[in-house]
């Protein structure tokens, strides 16, 4: 059973047991335009909620990706280095950024649900 939540920084987090997978939302990917470079965190890096975790760049914009929840990185998506276009093609699937073992499930439950995020985007 997995559950997906969203942040106001346009990240999504999917929680499977202790492990969270993080990426940027379809909305964010569209706003950035063609993604040309992604830097994902190395395995073992400890991140606090809201800490800078990854970098995503398009031709005209660069943006930090923040850890939506605290925890330790278990894997960065190495495939993005060779093919950053995956972030545009499938932002909420193959275009995931990193996986982490989360420290506190409460942090996760405080994030927005899909419906809440949809409303949030509408309000922008």
């Amino acid at each position, binding site marked *: 059973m997995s559950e997906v939540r969203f942040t106001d920084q346009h990240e999504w987090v999917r929680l499977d047991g202790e492990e969270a997978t993080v990426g940027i939302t379809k909305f964010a990917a569209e706003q950035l335009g*063609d993604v*040309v*470079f992604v830097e994902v965190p190395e395995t073992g890096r400890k991140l606090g909620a809201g800490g800078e975790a990854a970098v995503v*760049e*398009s*031709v*005209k914009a660069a943006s930090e990706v923040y850890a939506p929840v605290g925890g330790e990185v278990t894997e960065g998506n190495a495939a993005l280095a060779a093919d*950053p*276009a995956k972030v545009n093609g499938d932002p909420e699937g193959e275009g995931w950024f990193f996986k982490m073992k989360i420290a506190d499930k409460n942090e996760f439950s405080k994030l927005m649900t899909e419906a809440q995020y949809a409303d949030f985007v509408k309000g922008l």
Partner: protein
Amino acid sequence: MLNNQGRPTAPGSAHSEELPTISGDRGLDHEEGLIFELGRPGMTGVDIPQTQISDARLGGQRRKGAIGLPGLSEPEVVRHYVRLSRKNYSIDAGLYPLGSCTMKHNPRLNEKMARLPGFSDVHPLQPQQTVQGALALISELMRWLTTLTGMHTVAMSPKAGAHGELCGLLAIRAAIEARGETRKRILVPESAHGTNPATAALAGFIVDEVPATDDGHVDADALEAKLGPDVAAIMLTNPNTCGLFEPRILEMANAVHAAGAYFYCDGANFNAIAGRVRPGDLGVDAMHINLHKTFSTPHGGGGPGAGPVVFSKALAPFAPLPLLTHDENGFRYIEHRGDLKKGENPFGRMCAFQGQMGMFVRALAYMLSHGADGIRQASEDAVLSANYILASLKDVMSAPFGEGPCMHEALFDDTFLEGTGVTTLDFAKAMIDEGYHPMTMYFPLVVHGAMLIEPTESESKESLDRFIHVLRTLALEAKAGNRTRFEGAPRLAPRRRLDETLAARKPVLRWKEPAPVPVAAAAE
């Protein structure tokens, strides 16, 4: 007699359809390969004798492999670069309305003067008694710069505007340290040039953004609320990047000083006020001057620039080495701390040597040609021309702050393109087909789809009218739903739109020898 073979002298019928040429070139537009694809081994475009040398004094470091440079004769090199030059737009060839860039006429007298041997063929470490003319020129330029700005002194060594910003902030840092304080924050308006926050970070400060008001000014109340014992300085562009003079500038400067902080002014837009307003009277403590903007040194395809920094009395002691002085023996550069006078406390050195001498000569030639009266006239004409463009276009394009007068640049946003399917980028690229360089786009960031137009004082009224006519017509066509001029524009430039995504995803940043084609494949 001259046409006895019946050579036709009338043009005859013109075919309109595009027929691909055999050569790939199109009339005056030549396709040109890379220099590395043109040469051949052993050829050279210079006559230098062969010299036999021994390895005895090379420390065992003689080059083992070839460099890989191509060999070409002089005519080939000349043709190559002439052909490349023809693929560039230039201010000499047409109006260059880039906002915040001040693309004004570059007088050729300046070029001639910069090549005088007493300026161009002197070495920075020659004995100082042999470079008195060069030092006198720098001293005279310093006098012009401090007089025009109403400031105390000027550091000449910064090599460009951003380098000048760094110089200014390092002086501020040194002044704060000399007071025994530590202040970490620099206030930067959100409309600032990107170099401002980048420089503040480089100089070790934390950037704190100040919002803009709805009318395009810096929010002076928000600024004052942010001031405190941790604020080192404010970096303000005035006139600002929306092309507006900050009306509350004196109030802001006073508040900044009262809080113990300094006022850094980004001088990129000095061309609007030179000869009419002295930044020193506005409370400025440090300001860089882009000689390649206000004082007409050529942009040269992106450089070299020059960014002297004028300082108030409060910051003057911290100006970097070297320092130019004058006494009964003439001019002299103080190059070391050991030679300083009491009270001088330079923060360091910006670069090797004394700065961009070649640019100094050009700038002084401009100043002497214009005089104080001509510089004032230039600013007035620059402001007049921008306002003329604003007044002539604001009914068909959208000017977010078009109520009052602007300074030397007119700002538009993309509201007028709403629902047309035409973007700011399309609109700008369509200008290329009309023979114009686009305006500055998507800057400043405080308005959506910004288009910032700076005509400068160098355009005649006829030239401005023609430009206005083209922009009006483009705007009306876009609004009428006629997208043909915009989609995929430009069509008539040496290249169509280039794939920047590909360039960034798979960076190819240098030519490499192509892999040899296998013999079997070549034979096929």
